[in-house]
């Protein structure tokens, strides 16, 4: 049989269809320029100004999605969507760098991420009309599925050449401390972000410009000019509002349910 769904599957598919419709709607709105002003996130301003300074000083800006990996069929830490966020940021930052003439250095800790980064950065230079400025040596694979080895590699990069800034947005855990503290001791401007609860406190300790949780998925939109990149923010805002409403309604229902003799919510 091609399709043998249960009610939960049908509900999941309906939710996916609604979100797909929202994504399309918001993309069309963003193309028409109907985007709301964004709340300020100083971390991305730090990265933008570092790219500007890099064009003047000639010092590279380091970009990294961390040791994010694609898929986790072997049970390892799944950071595929964090990697996508890191890739989109690297692409957008490379675009800005190409337009401004600022050098960049991109590193990764997963072979598939490395190949995707090479493509994304080269594509960004091509889109900016600066294909001849693309340097494949500027996209480096430092490790593969080994967070500690990757962190050691980034520390080596910090020591090997003076950098203007380092933007590390993606899948980072406790290994971030090895890199973040090293960068802080070198007075390097760092922008860090992840969704991992193990990595976030260490980022806040070492890096004033920290991007927290879902904000990493907004990174590209904050660097890009107004347009399609902002559509993702619109969809996320709608979904976040829906989840908050659901939580509040669920909470109120749970409060009044015993006194009114209503059926309990599933799973409670």
């Amino acid at each position, binding site marked *: 049989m091609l*399709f043998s769904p249960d009610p939960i599957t049908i509900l999941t598919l309906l939710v996916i269809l609604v979100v797909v419709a929202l994504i399309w709607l918001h993309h069309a709105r963003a193309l028409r320029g109907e985007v709301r002003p964004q709340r300020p996130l100083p971390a991305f301003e730090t990265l933008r100004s570092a790219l500007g300074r890099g064009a003047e000083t000639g010092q590279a800006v380091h970009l990294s999605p961390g040791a994010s990996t694609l898929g986790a069929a072997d049970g390892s830490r799944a950071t595929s969507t964090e990697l996508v966020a890191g890739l989109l940021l690297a692409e957008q930052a490379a675009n800005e760098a190409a337009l401004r003439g600022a050098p960049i250095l991109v590193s990764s800790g997963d072979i598939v991420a490395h190949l995707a980064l090479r493509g*994304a950065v080269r594509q960004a230079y091509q889109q900016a009309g600066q294909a001849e400025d693309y340097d494949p040596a500027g996209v480096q694979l430092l490790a593969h599925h080994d967070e500690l080895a990757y962190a050691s590699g980034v520390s080596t990069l910090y020591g090997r050449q003076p950098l203007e800034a380092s933007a590390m947005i993606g899948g980072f855990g406790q290994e971030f401390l090895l890199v973040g503290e090293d960068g802080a001791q070198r007075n390097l401007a760092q922008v860090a972000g992840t969704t991992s609860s193990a990595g976030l406190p260490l980022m806040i*300790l070492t890096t004033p410009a920290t991007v927290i949780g879902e904000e990493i998925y907004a990174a590209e939109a904050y660097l890009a000019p107004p347009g399609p990149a902002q559509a993702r923010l619109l969809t996320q805002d709608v979904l976040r509002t829906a989840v908050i409403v659901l939580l509040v309604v669920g909470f109120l229902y749970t409060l009044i349910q015993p006194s009114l003799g209503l059926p309990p919510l599933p799973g409670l």
Partner: protein
Amino acid sequence: MSLLRDAKRLIAVLIAGVAGLIVLLDFAGAGGAFAIFAAILVEWAAVITAVGLLFGVLSVAATHVQRIGARSADWRYSLLLILGMLVMIVAGMFFPLPGRAGIVLPASLAEVPIRTVFRTLYEPIASSLLALLAFFSLSAALRALGRGSAEAAVIVVVAMLVLVAQLPPVTALPAVGATLQWLNDYVALAGARGLLIGAAIGAFVAGLRVLLGFDTPYLDR
């Protein structure tokens, strides 16, 4: 350029979108033929990753051989890397061991002699790096407090409280254990769930936008 006018991009987006949709439907529990196709696609992905890894190894080796040849800065580290790579390849592929059915080659990374090399070389180095985290976190905490960051101060204070609360004499005090458990079960868990829900929404939207071809970070033109 419009997606419809760019055939190369359109084909790549269609392949990525259809493959992703099949795996997504299988994950949602669609079952039937979707489960079979999804299993095949995941196997293909593993093969592609393995081939990618091979190219990655060749690329890393070529870069470091060039560095050694040109006597670039830190070329000795490059030599060490090439030697390490060769040791692991030889240990993993060409180091036969006596087995029940005669001489056999190691079947996985978890077997001798690869495991021996890992235990004697890699694990001590990794453990040392992990041990360094204690000193790094102290240094980071002092710097953060000096910076006057309110968020960092909260993290340091909570970390200190948790450390003190773990001490046996403190744990033995009345109500301390129950209070800590309540904080862990309600305050900390609520914050962690908030972070998780927000990140899941972001990941969900980012994933669907990739499937629909609005974002194409995989595309190499």
